[in-house]
């Protein structure tokens, strides 16, 4: 996103670049046989990654759509459910993810300038931040279990919707619907975080072994795109699930 000149549609960069990389080709072990040159390969990979991100957005879009429709339909119950979420753990997690996005940017920058050890360092820090997020998320889930806010036979919701001091009782069934969506959305997001951590661990190992050079670091860039995507989804989840009903 930031360091890659080849966003989809920017064909101008593409037509200029091949001449510059032409003489490297013969030596480039990363160039796959069916591409004409490294620039074409890079552009293809980058476009592919952006398309994948589009599919991911559509994937989460279905759940966001369901959440918004239900929130309008069952406002009180959703507001009451939202007030039961732990805003501090959510906020800390948001901060953790924002920092991890910064480390990803720094990793890409390090790759671009060919600093192998710095690159590995930032990748490892990113993975650690991702794991921190997951651990905190685990504590949050545990809290839900204790409060019987996990949908299913044991679900129990007696809390009321605090509407600026006015206590409004809500239908526990609809609160269960809220928590169903909460778990579906954050669970799917956590799954993407787990995949991201695995991916970045792999990238860190590859970087350690010296797979990447300042001429070839497309996997780092594309992995970074994925990480940013997962972060951005959280940046939408946090206000929609945690913050939206706090008007006191």
């Amino acid at each position, binding site marked *: 996103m930031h360091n890659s000149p080849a966003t989809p549609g920017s064909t101008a960069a593409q037509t200029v670049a091949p001449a510059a990389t032409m003489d490297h080709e013969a030596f480039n072990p990363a160039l796959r*046989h069916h591409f004409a040159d490294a620039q*074409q390969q890079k552009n*293809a990979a980058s476009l592919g990654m952006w398309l994948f991100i589009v*599919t991911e957005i559509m*994937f989460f879009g279905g*759940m966001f759509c369901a959440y918004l*429709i239900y929130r309008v339909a069952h406002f009180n119950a959703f507001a009451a459910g939202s007030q039961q979420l732990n805003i501090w753990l959510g906020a800390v997690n948001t901060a953790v993810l924002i920092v991890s996005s910064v480390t990803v940017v720094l990793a890409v920058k390090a790759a671009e300038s060919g600093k192998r050890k710095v690159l590995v360092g930032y990748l490892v820090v990113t993975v650690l931040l991702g794991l921190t997020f997951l651990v905190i998320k685990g504590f949050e889930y545990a809290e839900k279990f204790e409060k019987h806010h996990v949908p299913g036979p044991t679900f129990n919701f007696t809390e009321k919707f605090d509407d600026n001091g006015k206590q409004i009782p809500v239908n526990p069934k609809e609160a269960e*619907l809220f928590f169903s969506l909460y*778990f*579906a959305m954050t669970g799917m997001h956590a799954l993407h975080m787990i995949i991201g951590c695995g991916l970045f661990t792999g990238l860190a190992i590859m970087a350690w072994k010296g797979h990447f050079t300042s001429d070839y670091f497309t996997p780092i860039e594309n992995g970074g795109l994925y990480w940013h995507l997962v972060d951005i989804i959280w940046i939408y989840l946090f206000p929609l699930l945690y913050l939206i009903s706090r008007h006191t």
Partner: protein
Amino acid sequence: MATTSIPASQAPGSTTKLNYLNNGHTLRSWLLTTDHKRIALLYLLSVTAFFFLGGFFAMLIRLELLTPEGDLMQADTYNKVFTMHGMIMVFFFLIPVVPAVLGNFLVPLMVGAKDLAFPRINLLSWYLYVIAGALFLHCMLNGGVDTGWTFYTPYSTAASNTNVIEAGLAVFIVGFSSIFTGLNFIVTIHRMRAPGLTWSRLPLFIWAHYATSLIMILGTPVVAITIVLVAVERVFHLGIFDPRLGGDPLLFQHLFWFYSHPAVYIMILPSMGVISELITCFSRKRVFGYKFVALSSIAIAVIGFLVWAHHMFVAGISLYAAMVFSFLTFLVGVPSAVKVFNWTATLYKGSITYATPMLYAFGFIGLFTIGGLTGLFLGTLGIDVHVTDTYFVVAHFHYVMVGGVVMGFLGGMHFWWPKITGRMYPEYWARLSALLVFVGFNLTFFPQFVLGYVGMPRRYWQYPPEFQVLNVLSTAGASVLAVGYILPMIYFLWSLRYGPIADANPWNAAGLEWQTASPPPTFNFDQTPVVTWEAYNYDEIPEKELEAPVAQ
């Protein structure tokens, strides 16, 4: 199947040229190949297997419906049979058939590339298909699933006690196989075109696949998450669509059709692309109105995303929502009509021959016209209330799906068979089977329009006796249709060994795929082609002798 042709192609004295088929003979060289042409053949084998499995279930349905009573099988069995017919045909045959077989084989050839942009992802997509297929077969052998291919809640989440989760997982996985195919095509078409091959010079087959791929990557994730939510509701008792928790079963239908209506265009658009290639070649003409045919594919893909709720006119959506979706439905009719008119106009002042692929193209135009026009009936609110969820709908979508997609696929298979295998199919038998398919198809499905209007609901195991005559007609037609489908299987296999050797361009057709050897070498072209001509430049290609090298 393809491996058997290797000794034969080496036989007749000619110096054996290395091509994608004889470049490696081990099983490993097939199962770990990243060659798009070999992957296309792997897809061909698996898709054909599922087609005949789905066809077997179709025969069971038709046999059960010979009599009004439910006498051949139990009601539950029947419900599983039509569900598995639907799921197999939609998810494992119609969606992948043209893009994953013909598209996979031809997209790189037509754009002058050595392979698709991501060959390993292409192979992964086939493996995902196989895993999903195996999972579905496992689900089938374990008692099957009975929700209908539409997975409607709350039946699928609360009432059905069959293997919904496993079937859903299979659909989810096969969805990702289709996302990867679409992603690969878009990147290939954007980034890997041969020098000189501008967008306005692309074959219409490529335009159609580009539009299809857009739908694949935009729509498939939505159905994937929807099916996941259904599975999650069954496993973890989350209640996203559960009306007892205030969830809305209509939301499921909205999300489901948001993908599954565009999915109809995933199926039909690639076949439309095939038809454009066939009509031009056998009329020896440029396509009439190239730009309009090309853009109509994109228009269909875009407008196709705005019409989903026309499946839900009687489902409980508001009056005004229904009116808006009805109006948009007619909008999508325009680009489809534009295609039919342009194909017909292409024939004008052509130099037309009636080889088998062209017969399929004629058949496609006829059947798609009927299928498309009856779609307008269903888009008309007052009519839809009466005929939705009846055999009228069944007839309509079979006219588009079988009459359209399968006719296009078979036409394309005959047309590119010499390119794929280096052998010609037997023309006489092929024409006979084309005729059988056309006649059998109409006999099977035309009576169902009548059946639907007189009120027979779909998914019925038993029915009032007055509907029997029409059902018997339909079953009789189905047996003709079955012969029409089995015949090509036989002569295609026969031609692998005994068919006449095809040269690089037996049809004397335009298009880059005909400029390389038949079968093509592993990297498609010995030299990257440079394109200096418009698509379908039949005025620049001298005609051959009247008799094409076809077997009799």
